[in-house]
C-alpha cells in the first residue's frame, strides 16, 4: 500500500510540474513558495485567532480530534482523527488523495511556521464527525492549491469525499 501511495504522490507531483507554467496551477511545491509570500500578513492575524480559540480548551491546540489543533489552520471538512484515522492517516478502507491543498500553520510549541498539506481521504461517503472549517491563508478556487472548497478527491479512482488529514511537510520558507 505504501508503494502505491508513493507512486500516487510521485505521479501527482509530476503532473503538477508539467502543468505549472502553462496554467498557473500551484501544486505541492509551488504552493510552498506561494505560502511564503503570504507570511508578512500572518503573525498578527494568527495571534489574534489563537487567542480567540483558547476558551475552547487549554489543550485543544494539541488535540488532533479538536478543530483548534494547530495543524488544522486551513482545513475544511471532517477530521479523519474522529473518523477512524489520525491527524495524518486515513480511516480503514479509504484512500488518500494524491493531490492536496496547502496551508501554513504556526506551531505554538516551538514558535515555528510549518507547511501543511491537507489531503482528503476518499472512497466512502461523508464521515459526518468533527466538521471543521478553518481558513488561514485560504484562497478562492482560482488559486486552487490554496483552496479548501474543491473536492480534493477529484482525481481519485473514487472521488467520494470522506474526511481530511493534515500532513506536516516541513518548516515554511526553508
Amino acid at each position, binding site marked *: 500500500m505504501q508503494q502505491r501511495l508513493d507512486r500516487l504522490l510521485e505521479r501527482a507531483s509530476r503532473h503538477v510540474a508539467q*502543468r505549472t507554467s*502553462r*496554467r*498557473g*496551477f*500551484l501544486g505541492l511545491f509551488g504552493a510552498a513558495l506561494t505560502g511564503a*509570500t*503570504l507570511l508578512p*500578513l*500572518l503573525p498578527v*492575524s*494568527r495571534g*489574534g*485567532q489563537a487567542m480567540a480559540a483558547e476558551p475552547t480548551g487549554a489543550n485543544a491546540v494539541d488535540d488532533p480530534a479538536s478543530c483548534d489543533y494547530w495543524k488544522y*489552520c*486551513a482545513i*475544511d471538512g471532517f477530521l479523519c482523527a474522529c473518523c477512524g484515522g489520525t491527524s495524518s492517516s486515513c480511516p480503514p478502507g479509504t484512500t488518500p488523495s494524491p*493531490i492536496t491543498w496547502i496551508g501554513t500553520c504556526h506551531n505554538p510549541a516551538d514558535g515555528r511556521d510549518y507547511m501543511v498539506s491537507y489531503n482528503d481521504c476518499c*472512497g*466512502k*461517503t*461523508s464521515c*459526518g464527525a468533527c*466538521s471543521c*472549517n*478553518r*481558513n*488561514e*491563508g*485560504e*484562497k*478562492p*478556487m*482560482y*488559486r*486552487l492549491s490554496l483552496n479548501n*472548497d*474543491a*473536492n480534493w*478527491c*477529484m*482525481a481519485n479512482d*473514487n*472521488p*467520494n*469525499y470522506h474526511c481530511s488529514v493534515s500532513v506536516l511537510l516541513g518548516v515554511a520558507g526553508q
Partner: protein
Amino acid sequence: MRIDSFIRLAVILLLAPVRIALAAPMSAPLPPDHLSIAQLPAPSPHWIYVYDEAFNNETDSRLNLYDGDAHRLLGQIDTGYYPGFSLSPDGHTMAVATTYWSRGGHGQHTDVIEFTDTRSLSITGEVVLAPTRTQGPPTFYNLSYSKDQRFIYSTNLTPAASMSVIDVAKKQVVADFDTDGCVQAYASLERRVSSICENGKLLSVTVDDTGHEIARDFSERFFDVDQDPVFIQAAPSTNGMVFVSFLGMVHAVDLKTAQPTFPTPWSLVNAAQRGHWRPGGTQMIALHKTLGTLYVTMHQGGEGSHKVGGSQIWVFDANTHRRIARWTIDLAKYGTAIAVQVSQDEKPLLFVSTETSTLLTLDGKTGRLLHAEAKMGQTPWYLINP
C-alpha cells in the same frame, strides 16, 4: 360493530362533552379522498431554490423549491454529489451537473447533466459527461447556459481547468477547451463565456455555432489575488457581474462590451471598518438588478474569517455606493447568515439562510422579518432565484 359503536359513543359522551358538542353526529360521513399528484402553482418571483449540500450525507444533495409568500416547500430536485446548476434563460429547465456511482458512493462513477422541467419537477433527459466535472463549492457558475440557450458551458477540474460545451438540442457534448487554469463560467453576449483566473484577470472565450472556440482574450487585471482576492460567488447584474472581495471591495464587471470592462471598484467599508468588518459565508452577496440594491452578509473578523457568516446584512445602493441599511441577524435564534438572495420583482423578498439551517424571509426594502422556516435541510449553502 353496533355494540362497539355504542361503547364508543358512551365513552365520548362521558369523557369529551366538548368534542361531542362540536360534532354533528348525524351529518353525512366525509367522502373518500382522491389520491393524486400535486401540480405546481403558477410560477412566482417569490419562489426560491434552496440548495442543501447535505454535508453529512453529501451524495444526497438537493434543491428545495420554496414559496416565500405561502411559506411552504413546493417540491424537490435531487442533485446528487457536489452539483453544478444552471437555469435556462426561459426559466423552464433546471440543468444539474452531478456525479453518481453504480453503488451509492462507490463502484463506477458517472458525471452527467440532468434536465428537470421546472413546471413539473420531473427529469426530462440527461447528457453523460467525461468524469472531469468541477466538484467545487456551490455557485451558479460551475455550469452556465449560453445566453441564447443553445449551449451549456460545463466547467471541469482534474485539477487542470477546462470547459465542455453541450449542445442543448442535441443533448451531447460538442466541444471542449482548456481555460488556462481559470475557473467558473460566466456567460455573456450570445456565445461568450468568461472565467476567473489566478492572475486576477478574466478569460473570455467565444464559441461558434458548433460550440467550438473561435476567440479567447484575457481582460486587464481587475483585482489583486494576494492582497485582496474576490470571492467566486458573484451576483449577476444588468450589464454583467458583481464580485466582492475578502476586504469588502466591490468589483463590477461589464460584460456587454466587446471586451469585459471594469468600472472603478468601491468599498463596502470605511477606513475604520476595513479589515474588521468583512463579507463572509457561502453566498455573501445578492443584487437586485433593476433596483440596484446590493445585500451583503457582514461579520466582524480578521484574516481567514471569510467563510464566517454574517451577523448583519448590509444594504447598499450599488449605483450611488451608499449604505442604505444594516439589518441585524438574531444570532441566538438563527446563527449567522451564510447565504443571501433577493427576488427580482418590484416588491422584493430577501432570503437568508443561516448556519442553523433556517431560511429567513425578509422584506427586501425594510428588512422586516416576515417568516423563519426552520429545518431547511442540513446545510442550505446557496439560494437561486426561479
